[in-house]
Every structure is written in C-alpha cells, then in structure tokens.
C-alpha cells in the first residue's frame, strides 16, 4: 500500500481554510438589508417595469450572496462552480419559452372565450 501513500493532513484540504467571522457577519447584515429593500418594493407599491426590475435585482443579489459566501461557492474551484451553473441555461430557456407560452394561451383565452374578444 505504500505507493498509494496518504497525503499528510496539511495538504488534505487545501481550499477549505476557514474564513474570518467578519465576512459572515457582513453578508448576514447585507441579506437583512436587501430583504428589507425588497419588502419596501411592496410597501411603496412600485408598479410595472420598475417593480419587476427591483424584485429581480434584490432576488438575484440575495441568492448570489447566499450561494457565493454562505455556500462557499466563491471560494470553490471553477470546476465545481461551472458544473453547477451551466445547467441553469436549460432552466433559463424553459422560463423564456414558457413566458412566451403563457402569453399565447392567455391571448387565445381572452380572444375566443370572452365577449368582445373576438372583435
């Protein structure tokens, strides 16, 4: 078994060094702030594109912070990060196409099933 020699403890986990507590507290605080802002979007009743872009911005910001720091993705090697993120393109494609689909369905229903729609 000597050629499958074990690695000494020091080298075993090269990327898993612990991080300073400050970074966690910072991210924690940021998450509260962002959640508060996204709540404010509803409080002030923003409408239309502004509302949507704000909602999505805060959502992705929060998700990004959680993934990057709490889930340590920021410190992971790109091999793992890429494996995790590329499949999301399939989801993105699915979302875009279903958005087109619901518009079409809604149009069909409004046009053919509601009085005045066919006019």
């Amino acid at each position, binding site marked *: 078994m000597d050629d499958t020699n074990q690695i000494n403890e020091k080298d075993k986990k090269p990327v898993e060094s*612990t991080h300073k*507590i400050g970074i966690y507290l910072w991210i924690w605080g940021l998450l509260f702030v962002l959640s508060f802002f996204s*709540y404010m979007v509803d409080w002030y009743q923003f409408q239309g594109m502004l509302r949507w872009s704000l*909602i999505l911005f805060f959502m992705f910001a929060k998700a990004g912070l959680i993934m990057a720091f*709490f889930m340590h993705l920021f410190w992971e090697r790109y*091999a793992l990060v*890429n494996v995790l993120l590329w499949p999301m393109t399939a989801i993105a494609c*699915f979302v875009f196409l279903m958005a087109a689909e619901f518009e079409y369905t809604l149009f069909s229903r409004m046009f053919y099933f509601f009085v005045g729609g066919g006019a």
Partner: protein
Amino acid sequence: MSDPKIDGFELKPGFRGMASDTGSDQTMFKGVHWGKAMMWIFLLSDTFVFSCFLIAYMKGRGSTPVEWPNPSEVFALEAFGVPVPLLLIALMTFVLITSSGTMALAVKYGYEKNRKMCGWLVLATAIGGLTFVGMQAYEWSKLIHEGVRPWENPFGAAQFGSFFFMITGFHGTHVSIGVIFLFIYAYKVFAGHYENGGKRGWFTTMKGDYVEIEILGLYWHFVDLVWVFIFAFFYLW
C-alpha cells in the same frame, strides 16, 4: 500567493485551474469531499424541481384570465389594529435568514473543531427552522380560515390556492426535513461523533467528520435560497 498543491498536482486558479482540474486524474473537484460533491449535485437536481414548480406557477398564473389575488392584501396581517402588508412573510424571511447566518457560523466553527460553538449554532439554526415552520403553519391556517383551498379561493383565480399550498408546502417539507436533521446533527456534534477521527455509522462505512456539518449547511442555505425566489415570485409579483 503561491498556488496550493495536492501532492503532485498544482492547483491553478480560475479557468486555467478548471481546465487542469477537469483534465486531471482521480478527482475533478479538487479537495471536495465525496459527500459534499454529492450534496451539491443533489441540490442542482433539487433546483430543477423547484424551477419546474415555479415555471408551472408562472405559466398557470400568466395564462389565467381570471383576476389573480393581490398577495400584498391576502397576506396582510393586523399589527396594532393596522393591516400591514406581508408582515408575516417579512418575519418569516427574517427568521430564515437569521437561521441561515447561524448555520454559516456553525460550519465555520465546525471546521475549527470548536465543538461547543458548532453544536449551539446548529441547535440555534434548528430552532430558527422550527419557528419558520410554525409561522408557516399559522399562515396556512389563516388562509384556510379565510376560505382559501387548493381547489378554490374567494379572492380570484382558483390556481392561486393550488400553487400556493403546493409550492410553500413543498418548501415547508424541505424545511421540516432540514429541521429534523439539524436536531440530529446537533446531537451528534455534542456527542462528539466528529472528534478523534470520527465515529463509524451503523451498517455502513461512513465515518463522522465535521464536513457533514458543511454538507448539512449547504442544504440549509439552499432552503433559504429557494425561499428568496418564492418570496420574490409569490409575494411580491
């Protein structure tokens, strides 16, 4: 800063590192524990589950010609006699983010082999999760009391109730499973299963290690992550 090494293998940074990791033998995710890699892939799969739920919700909500209830009114809560929109949801979000923070710290102390701190933080996370589940149960009972059912609701489109109960229910199930495991792992930490090389499990070959706390942490943060999306699409849309 010199690049770290795994015996005989240079860990290059960035995309060059990705190419060399992928092209190397033995492991592709350098230094990543099997269980952690497995949890990541499982979460990827679970992401697809939640994405499919949310996409279905988008399609369902978008294509119904009946008016969709305004969530900020439906989920309003009376506080001091004034209806505050989304108050309960805001509190739930607060609780979940708090528990996510304690979990992150638990992982940190786990790696530092700080048994006490790690154990207490995992326990705190579990209690946070339990609070969240309790608040969700309250929210459900309130809605049911108001006449919202999976198959109908008095405020508008019937799909509102269906999607609401299904998606929050599925998320709540995830939280509940997480809470159960958090309690188990809190016990395991306190009992010292991860100390001194770890304790071997029953009928298996796995040995305990503090990396399990990180794996559990990944799951818990994922649950929080999903809530971020549900919060945006369900309550703010």
